[in-house]
């Protein structure tokens, strides 16, 4: 079995694994995934993960929609805009707020100035202004003034707030568009292209040619947005938050609901690992036990188990699983049970049974029977330790199969309805036309994680196979 001088136990196995390149690679990837899982579970506990993932849009309103991860800059070769958030309630660089009481009247002016640099090579994706007003009678009256690095300064809009938490979606506001357009068309009387948008006018270098073609270059430098508000009671207050949305976000990007993809990518790891390992461990163990029963007791027990196994091998596994998932909206652990139940009498039984039948006739088992060892003792002390070596690489090799199965079901929309998983990210990317819209990161990231998991176990399986099956060793 092992060469003389080989070590025993887990430590020995790990040490031996490390003598193979595939073993090192497999262990390294697995270690990374396990570390990731631990981090995920500790940093974002289960309940928190579900809350974040299932949270309404309000939770992620400050994030850009379908933003690529920040590292795509490396491939694009441009400086892509990050999201800029400026909040008058959080004093800091770029935000100033002044209150000027109007003499003789129970009114005051509140002037909030947002000042920020925009040095990126592309336009932002969106711009919103959120108000936090506190008034008792007449709502505040607001005037917005936009000042560009070139010095151009113009009014964007004038209006009364509709609600204390009113917001202005600047980038899609028709009022802002017409105000900005009228400012520029006065300057350059040209035919304005249909493709001109608010953001192009606000952040682009406006030239007659650009107005006609609709293609703008980004005007880099310092921008100022001034909120000039008049409140009609001295006790009233107004704050505002400006968000200039970028086109990249974090290390994993965001999805169509502005949720950061780190959450499902991180949480996918513990779910995939635990699902794959549990399914593989339990099915392999049960299959082994059944095979041992079948081989050891023989006779009608053997016949019965073999016939049941053949029946199970005929049952179409995936259609069955899909049917169960469709009829009963099941969570991932019930799914695990169904998967196990459907693969208990799997093909693995045949191979292990053949091993047991061969082993049963070996002299040392005969000797054990002679000195009266019970069936139980022979099975657990003599047979199972001997058939474990070929079973273990199979166990490791089966893990990616179950991980893919879970992802496949999630992709078909039949997975766990609550948990963020890799398969579900791919499913959402697909239903939101990620590839059609060129949002490759959305599909590639979870796919890469899935492949990484498969690689880890495949490499480990190769190495283990070489260890327990010395004929495969390279010379």
């Amino acid at each position: 079995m092992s060469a003389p001088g080989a070590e025993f136990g887990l430590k020995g196995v790990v040490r031996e694994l490390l003598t193979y390149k595939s073993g090192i690679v497999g262990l390294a990837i697995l270690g990374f995934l396990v570390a990731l899982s631990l981090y995920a579970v500790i940093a974002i506990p289960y309940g928190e993960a579900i809350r974040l993932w299932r949270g309404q849009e309000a939770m992620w309103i400050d994030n850009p929609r379908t933003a690529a991860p920040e590292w795509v800059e490396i491939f694009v070769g441009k400086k892509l805009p990050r999201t800029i958030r400026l909040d008058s309630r959080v004093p800091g660089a770029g935000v100033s707020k002044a209150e000027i009481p109007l003499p003789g009247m129970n009114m005051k002016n509140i002037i909030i100035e947002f000042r920020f640099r925009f040095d990126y090579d592309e336009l932002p994706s969106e711009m919103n202004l959120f108000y936090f007003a506190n008034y008792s009678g007449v709502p505040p009256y607001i005037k917005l003034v936009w000042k560009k690095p070139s010095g151009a300064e113009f009014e964007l809009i004038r209006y009364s707030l509709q609600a204390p938490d009113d917001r202005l979606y600047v980038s899609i506001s028709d009022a802002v568009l017409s105000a900005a357009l009228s400012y520029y068309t006065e300057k350059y009387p040209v035919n304005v292209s249909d493709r001109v948008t608010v953001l192009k006018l606000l952040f682009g270098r406006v030239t007659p040619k650009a107005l006609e073609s609709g293609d703008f270059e980004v005007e880099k430098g310092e921008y100022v947005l001034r909120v000039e508000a008049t409140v009609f009671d001295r006790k009233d207050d107004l704050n505002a938050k400006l968000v200039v949305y970028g086109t990249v976000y974090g290390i994993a990007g965001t999805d169509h609901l502005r949720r950061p993809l780190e959450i499902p990518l991180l949480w996918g790891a513990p779910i995939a690992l635990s699902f794959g390992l549990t399914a593989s461990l339990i099915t392999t163990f049960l299959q082994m036990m059944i095979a041992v029963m079948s081989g050891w007791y023989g006779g009608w027990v053997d016949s019965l188990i073999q016939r049941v196994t053949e029946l199970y091998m005929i049952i179409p596994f995936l259609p069955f699983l899909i049917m169960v998932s469709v009829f009963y909206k099941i969570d991932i652990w019930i799914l695990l049970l169904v998967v196990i139940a459907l693969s208990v009498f799997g093909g693995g039984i045949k191979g292990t049974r053949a091993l047991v039948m061969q082993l049963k006739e070996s002299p040392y088992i005969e000797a054990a029977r002679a000195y009266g060892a019970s069936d139980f003792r022979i099975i657990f002390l003599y047979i199972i330790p001997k058939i474990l070596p070929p079973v273990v690489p199979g166990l490791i090799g089966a893990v990616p199969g179950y991980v893919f199965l879970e992802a496949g079901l999630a992709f078909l929309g039949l997975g766990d309805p609550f948990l963020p998983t890799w398969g579900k990210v791919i499913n959402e990317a697909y239903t939101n036309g990620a590839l059609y819209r060129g949002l490759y990161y959305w599909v590639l990231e979870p796919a890469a994680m899935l492949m990484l998991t498969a690689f880890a176990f495949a490499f480990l399986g190769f190495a283990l196979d070489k260890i327990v099956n010395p004929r495969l060793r390279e010379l």
Partner: protein
Amino acid sequence: MSAPLLEVRNLLLHYGTRKGVVRAVDGVSFTLGAGETLAIVGESGCGKTSLARAIIRLLPRNVHRFEGQVLLDGADVMKLSDEEFRREVQWRKISMVFQAAQNSLNPVLKVGFQVAEPLMVHMGMDREEAIAEARKHLRMVGIHESFADRYPFELSGGMKQRAVIAMALITKPRVVILDEPTSALDVITQANIMNLLKTIKRELGISYIFITHDIALSSELADKVMVMYAGHMVELAGADEFYTKPLHPYSQKLMASVPTLRTDKKLEFIPGAPPSLINPPPGCRFHPRCPYAMDVCRREEPPTVEVKSGHYVKCWLHAGGG
């Protein structure tokens, strides 16, 4: 040697196979006194191992007939149920050293644990105690105690053989069946093991049933020799008498086939092979290969006659009273 320790009377063991009934052991009787060694010799396929298995009741599934009497200390153990036999006789009173001992050790168990197994299984001893006992027995058979913590593949063939002998002795049985205990060993190791067996026999007063096809080797240990042919016992005699003057033609042929040192002897062999035990020849089963075969040999089975006290022969040549 008044009351024999083990007495086997007319033991039958037939196997049922698809081709027919294999009459592996067909009416064998013998006695074995305390501290005595009975050597059972014969060619391969004569039923030697089947006889041993019948005595220790380690039977395959396809037993067709299993009859006769096995008296141990005067009590017929054949009357015991399998479970009772397993609990009271197997290994406690009769133990066995298997053919190809190298393979009788579980490769995934440490030697000490393995040797201690019968104690744990039979005596219900706890693990520590049993392993301590195993170390003692390993020392007795000449293996350093430290080997108790090794795995079988780390031991040489001779050491494994010693370990298996220790395993057979650990329950302090009365009878040990040695089924070709040295067949896979080189001659030096073989000599070592034979010396060890002799020492043990002298010190512990154990009775051996020593199964071998090596008639020269059997002379080392035997007090009595039994020759088996095609499931029958053809000759049973005291060792001295047997080695000097075997009576059955088959025994004579066996003796003539043993090489000797220094003398330039032409080795004899017996033409043909042992007959099929499914369909044995009529009359004397040896007659197709027997140089002295007579008409009666082809027709009728010879009776077993006691030629001298303790010397039995199953041959028509001696049936008339010698």
